[in-house]
C-alpha cells in the first residue's frame, strides 16, 4: 500500500490535542467559585497530581478517529498486480525521446543515455512499435513507428551529440503527434535525458494523449562541477587616434565546490595573448578583464578559454570585433545656399558614436559617380533635380540611401518622378500658427524610435511652409513582391498633406521630406526630437546595424544582410558561400538564404560579387545549458498528464491504467473516512453521557453527602 498524499500524515500531530484534553482540560475548564483561596494557596502546588490521563477508552476512540481521517486524506492505494497485468496485454506504441543536447556530454552521460535507450528497446516485443526521437533545441524523429527494432537500435548507435540547448517541448510535441497517429491501444513515452530545469517552460500547454504512460529515465550525477564562460564584453576606447578594445569575460561556477586559480586565456586570431587567474565561488560568477589591444583589422577573431572539466564544450567563448564603422553621408546643397541651410543637419550628424557619421558637403546641381560610390547616404538638401539622376537611381538600387529635402529651390519637375515616391508641387503657406504633423506611421524604422510613450514627440513642431506632394500610384515595374508596396506615406500634416514618404528602389530606399530641415519653414530643428529624428533617418537609409560580436547556436543569420551591413556592397542575386567551423562549405547561388548556426566556432561568409569580401561571425553555445540543475520529473509528469502525480515514473514495467482502474485502487479512503466519522459520532454520544455538565461552564460546587 502506498499513499498519494503522504504529507497529510503531518496531521497526526493533532494526536497531542486529545491527549492534552484528557490530561488537563477537565481541571482547567470546570470552574468552582470558592469564597477564598487563602488556605488553598498555602498548600504547595507540587503536591497536586493533575497529570494523569482520564477516560482511557474515550481517548483511544478519539485517537482512532483522528488516525482514520488522516489515513483517508492521505489517499492510500494498492499496487494490485492483477490490475496492472490486465492492461499489459496487446501491442504497444513506444516513443523513445533521447536528449542529445550538449549538456549530455558531461562525463559519460551520453554513453549511459544510449545504453538506457537500448535497454528500453530490448524491453519491447516484436508486436510493439517503436519511435526514436532525438532532441536538443529541435527534435527529429530518427526512426518512426517501426516494428523493426534493429533499426531503432542502429539509430541509437548512430545518434550524435549536438551543440544545441535542451528544450523538451518540440520533442514532446513530436511524440504527441506519433502517438496520436498510432492505432495501438497502449501508448508509452520513454524520456531519456538529464532533465535540465532550463529546458522546461511550464506554460507550453503540452498534454500527451489520454492514457499515455510517461517513463522518465534521468541520466544524472550525484555531484556535478562545471565552469563556463558565460559572456564576453568587448569595450572600445580611443588611444592616440587608434581604436582599442578591452575584453571582459564572465566565468560562472555551476558546481557545488569553489574553483580556485582558474586560468582564463584570451586568444586573438588563434594566438594566445594573455592569461588571467580567477577564483570562483560555487553558484557565483566572476569577471575577468584583459588588457586592451589595438584593433588593427576588421573581423578580428577572439576566443576566451578556460581549462577542461567534465563538460568541455562550454569552456570556450568566441567573439568577433571590427573597427567601428562610420556612416558616410554626402550632403548636397544648392550653389548659392546660405551658410545656415545645412547648419542644423551638419551639427546633428556631427554628434553620435554608434554609429559615427562622416559628412561631406557638396554644392551644385550635379554629383559625381565617384562621390556616390564612397558614400552610403546622400542628402539632397533643397536642390533641384540633379543631372546625374540615373547615377542616383543606380546608387539607390545597389543599397544606398537618398534623402530628398524639399524647400524653396527644390523644383524637381516631372522628370524626377522615376526616383521620388511622389511629385513635388507648389509651396503651401500655412498662415497663423502654422500646421503640425498629425499622422505618423510609427511602424516605419525611421519613426519607430518615437513609438513608445515619453520617447519624444515630433507632433509639437510647427510647420509654416511645405511643398505639396502628390503620391504616384504603384507602377507594375516597381513591385518587388505582390504584398509589399514600394511607395509609402510615412507622415502627414494635419491638413492631410504628405510630410514624409518613402520609395524602395532595388536594395535601397528614397525618403522624401516635404519641408526643410532648417528653421526657415518650420521649427523642427529647434525641438529636442530633431537630433534623434535625423539620426534615425540616416541610420535607416544606410541600413546600419550594430554589428554583433557573437551569435548563439540555433540563431538564424542572413548572409546577404551580413555582407550588406558590413559595407561590402554586395549586389543582390550574386550568391554567397558559407564556411562552417567544421570546414563544411555551404554554397548559395542567387539571393542568399538564411542559415541556422549549428556549430560553435567561427563562420565565414564569402560574397560572390566583384567587390565582395569575407565576413566572419562567431557562434557560441547557449550558456543556459551549462546550468545542470535538474527538473522535478514529477512536475513534468503532472504537467503532461494533467493530473498531479498519477504515474509512477520509477516503474518502467507499469502498464497504462484506465481511470476506472485508478479509482478502484484508490477508493479505500472512502471507507476510512466513513469509519472515522462514525467513530466521532460514537465518541460524541459517549462523552456526553460520561461527562454530564458541559465543559467550560461554571458549576456550583458538588458536595459529597
Amino acid at each position, binding site marked *: 500500500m502506498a499513499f498519494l498524499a503522504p504529507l497529510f500524515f503531518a496531521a497526526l500531530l493533532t494526536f497531542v490535542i486529545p491527549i492534552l484534553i484528557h490530561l488537563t482540560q477537565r*481541571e482547567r475548564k*470546570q*470552574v*468552582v*467559585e470558592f*469564597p477564598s483561596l487563602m488556605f*488553598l494557596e498555602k498548600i504547595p502546588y507540587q503536591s497536586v497530581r493533575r497529570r494523569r490521563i482520564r477516560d482511557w477508552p474515550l481517548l483511544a476512540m478519539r485517537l482512532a478517529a483522528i488516525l482514520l481521517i488522516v489515513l483517508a486524506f492521505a489517499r492510500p492505494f494498492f499496487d494490485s498486480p492483477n490490475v496492472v497485468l490486465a492492461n499489459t496485454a496487446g501491442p504497444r506504441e513506444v516513443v523513445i525521446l533521447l536528449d542529445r543536447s550538449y549538456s549530455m556530454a558531461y562525463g559519460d552521460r551520453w554513453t549511459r543515455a544510449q545504453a538506457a535507450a537500448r535497454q528500453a528497446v530490448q524491453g519491447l516485443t516484436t508486436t510493439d512499435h517503436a519511435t526514436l526521437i532525438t532532441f536538443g533545441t529541435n527534435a527529429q524523429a530518427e526512426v518512426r513507428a517501426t516494428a523493426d527494432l534493429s533499426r531503432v537500435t542502429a539509430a541509437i548507435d548512430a545518434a550524435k551529440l549536438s551543440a544545441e540547448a535542451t528544450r523538451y517541448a518540440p520533442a514532446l510535441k513530436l511524440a504527441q503527434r506519433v502517438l496520436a497517429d498510432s492505432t495501438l491501444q497502449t501508448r508509452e513515452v520513454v524520456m531519456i535525458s538529464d532533465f535540465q530545469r532550463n529546458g522546461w517552460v511550464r506554460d507550453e500547454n503540452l498534454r500527451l494523449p489520454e492514457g499515455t504512460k510517461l517513463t522518465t529515465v534521468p541520466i544524472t550525477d550525484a555531484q556535478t562541477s562545471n565552469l563556463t564562460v558565460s559572456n564576453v564584453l568587448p569595450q572600445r576606447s580611443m588611444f592616440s587616434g587608434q581604436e582599442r578594445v578591452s575584453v571582459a569575460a564572465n566565468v560562472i561556477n555551476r558546481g557545488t565546490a569553489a574553483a580556485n586559480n582558474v586560468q582564463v586565456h584570451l586568444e586573438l586570431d588563434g594566438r594566445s595573448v594573455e592569461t588571467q587567474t580567477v577564483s570562483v565561488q560555487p553558484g557565483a560568477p566572476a569577471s575577468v578583464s584583459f588588457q586592451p589591444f589595438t584593433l588593427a583589422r576588421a573581423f578580428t577573431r577572439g576566443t576566451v578559454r578556460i581549462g577542461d572539466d567534465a563538460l568541455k564544450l562550454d569552456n570556450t567563448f568566441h567573439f568577433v570585433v571590427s573597427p567601428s564603422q562610420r556612416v558616410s553621408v554626402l550632403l548636397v546643397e544648392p550653389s548659392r545656399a546660405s551658410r545656415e541651410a545645412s547648419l542644423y543637419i551638419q551639427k546633428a550628424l556631427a554628434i553620435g558614436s554608434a554609429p559615427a557619421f562622416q559628412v561631406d558637403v557638396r554644392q551644385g546641381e550635379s554629383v559625381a559617380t565617384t562621390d556616390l560610390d564612397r558614400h552610403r547616404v546622400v542628402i539632397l538638401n533643397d536642390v533641384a533635380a540633379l543631372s546625374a539622376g540615373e547615377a542616383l537611381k543606380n546608387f539607390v538600387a545597389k543599397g544606398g540611401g537618398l534623402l530628398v529635402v524639399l524647400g524653396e529651390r527644390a523644383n524637381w519637375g516631372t522628370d524626377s518622378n522615376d526616383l521620388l515616391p511622389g511629385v513635388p508641387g507648389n509651396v503651401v503657406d500655412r498662415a497663423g500658427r502654422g500646421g503640425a504633423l498629425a499622422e505618423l506611421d510609427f511602424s516605419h524604422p525611421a519613426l519607430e524610435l518615437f513609438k513608445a510613450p515619453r520617447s519624444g514627440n515630433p507632433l509639437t513642431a510647427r510647420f509654416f511652409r511645405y511643398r505639396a506632394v502628390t503620391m504616384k500610384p504603384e507602377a507594375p515595374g516597381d513591385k518587388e513582391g505582390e504584398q509589399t508596396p514600394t511607395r509609402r506615406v510615412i507622415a502627414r500634416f494635419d491638413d492631410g498633406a504628405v510630410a514624409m514618404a518613402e520609395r524602395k528602389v532595388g536594395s535601397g530606399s528614397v525618403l522624401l521630406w516635404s519641408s526643410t530641415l532648417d528653421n526657415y519653414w518650420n521649427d523642427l530643428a529647434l525641438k529636442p526630437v530633431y537630433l534623434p529624428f535625423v539620426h534615425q533617418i540616416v541610420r535607416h537609409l544606410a541600413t546600419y546595424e550594430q554589428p554583433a560580436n557573437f551569435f548563439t547556436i540555433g540563431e538564424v543569420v542572413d548572409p546577404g544582410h551580413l555582407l550588406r551591413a558590413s559595407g561590402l556592397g554586395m549586389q543582390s542575386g550574386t550568391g554567397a558561400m558559407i564556411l562552417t567551423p567544421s570546414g563544411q562549405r555551404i554554397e548559395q547561388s542567387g539571393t542568399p538564404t538564411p542559415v541556422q548556426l549549428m556549430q560553435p566556432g567561427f563562420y565565414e561568409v564569402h560574397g560572390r560579387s566583384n567587390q565582395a569580401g569575407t565576413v566572419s561571425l562567431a557562434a557560441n553555445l547557449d550558456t543556459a545549458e551549462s546550468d545542470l540543475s535538474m527538473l522535478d520529473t514529477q512536475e513534468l509528469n503532472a504537467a503532461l498528464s494533467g493530473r498531479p502525480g498519477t504515474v509512477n515514473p520509477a516503474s518502467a514495467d507499469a502498464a497504462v491504467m484506465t481511470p476506472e482502474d485508478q479509482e478502484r485502487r484508490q477508493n479505500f479512503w472512502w471507507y476510512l473516512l466513513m469509519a472515522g466519522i462514525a467513530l466521532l459520532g460514537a465518541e460524541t454520544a459517549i462523552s456526553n453521557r460520561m461527562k454530564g455538565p458541559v465543559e467550560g461552564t461554571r458549576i456550583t*460546587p458538588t*458536595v459529597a453527602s
Partner: protein
Amino acid sequence: MEQHSLPGARFVDPKVLARIGNLELLAKTVVDGFINGLHRSPYFGASVDFAEHRGYMPGDDIRRVDWKLYARTDRYYLKEYEADTNANFSVILDISRSMEFSSRGISKLEYGKYLGACLAYFAQKQRDRIGCVTFDNDIVTHIPPSAKHLERVLHTLDRAKAERKGDLKVPMQKMAEHFGRRGILVIVSDWYDTPESIMDAVKPLRFRGNDLIVFHVLDPSEIDFNFTDAASFQDLETGEQIPVVPTALAAQYKSLVQEHIAALTSRFSQNRVDYTLVNTATPLDYALFKYLSARQRLSRVR
C-alpha cells in the same frame, strides 16, 4: 424541619426560613419559638438590678447620691446598677463577595442576615436601641442605633447584596471612630484574613469599651471541603483561579481551616470578645441557643 437531640428545643432549618422572605416575620418565628422554649431570656432579662454603692467623687452627678444612706452613715454614696437596659445594639454584617458562597441552598450572607435580624429582634424585645452597619471594603450602609429603627435595620439587612471585595481594616477603623458611645456590637462575617490582621482590625472597636460579639459564619463545604471533582477553584473576590484536585488537598485544607478557627477562638477570647462559629447547615435558633447558653454561662462565671 430537622429534629435535633437537644430536648425541649424546636429548631428551624435555615432552608425553611429562607422561604419566609420577610425578615421581621422570620425573626419573630425564630425568636418567639426560642423564647417560648426557654421561657425567658437568660441574658437580657434583668436590666435595672442594683449592683453596688461607691464613694462620691467630685464631679459625680449629685442626683445619683443615695440620700437615705447618707442619712444613716453621714457619707456620700452613689448607687450603681448592673447593666444599662437600653444599650446601643448594632448588627455589623459583612457583605463582601465571599459571603455569597453557598453549597446547600442558603448562602452565608443570607444566614448572616437571618442571624442579624433575629438578634435585632431580640434586642428590640429588650428595648435596646438598634442600629446596623453593612460593610465590604468600606462601610456600605449605616443605620444609627435607635429604639425605632428595627424596621429600617431589617429593611437594610434585607436589601444587602454582596458585590465587592472585602476588607476589615478600613471599615472597622471608621466604625471605631463612629461608635463613640459604648454599646453591644455583633459582627457577622466569614473572617477570611489572617488572625493577626483580624485582631488588628477588631481591636479598635474593643478599645472603646464596646461589648463585641463575633459570629464566624462558614458554609459546611468550607469546613469539610468535601468536593470530589478536580477543577479550577476561583476566588469569589479576586477572580484568581488555581487548579485543585480536592481528594489530594482536602486533608491539608481542613487542617488549615481548623487551625484558623482555633487561632481565632484563642485570639478573640484573649481580647474578651465573644466568638461563635456558625455553620450555615445548622438551624438558626440552634446556633442562637448555643451562643446564648454559652453567654449565660460566662456571665455567671463573671
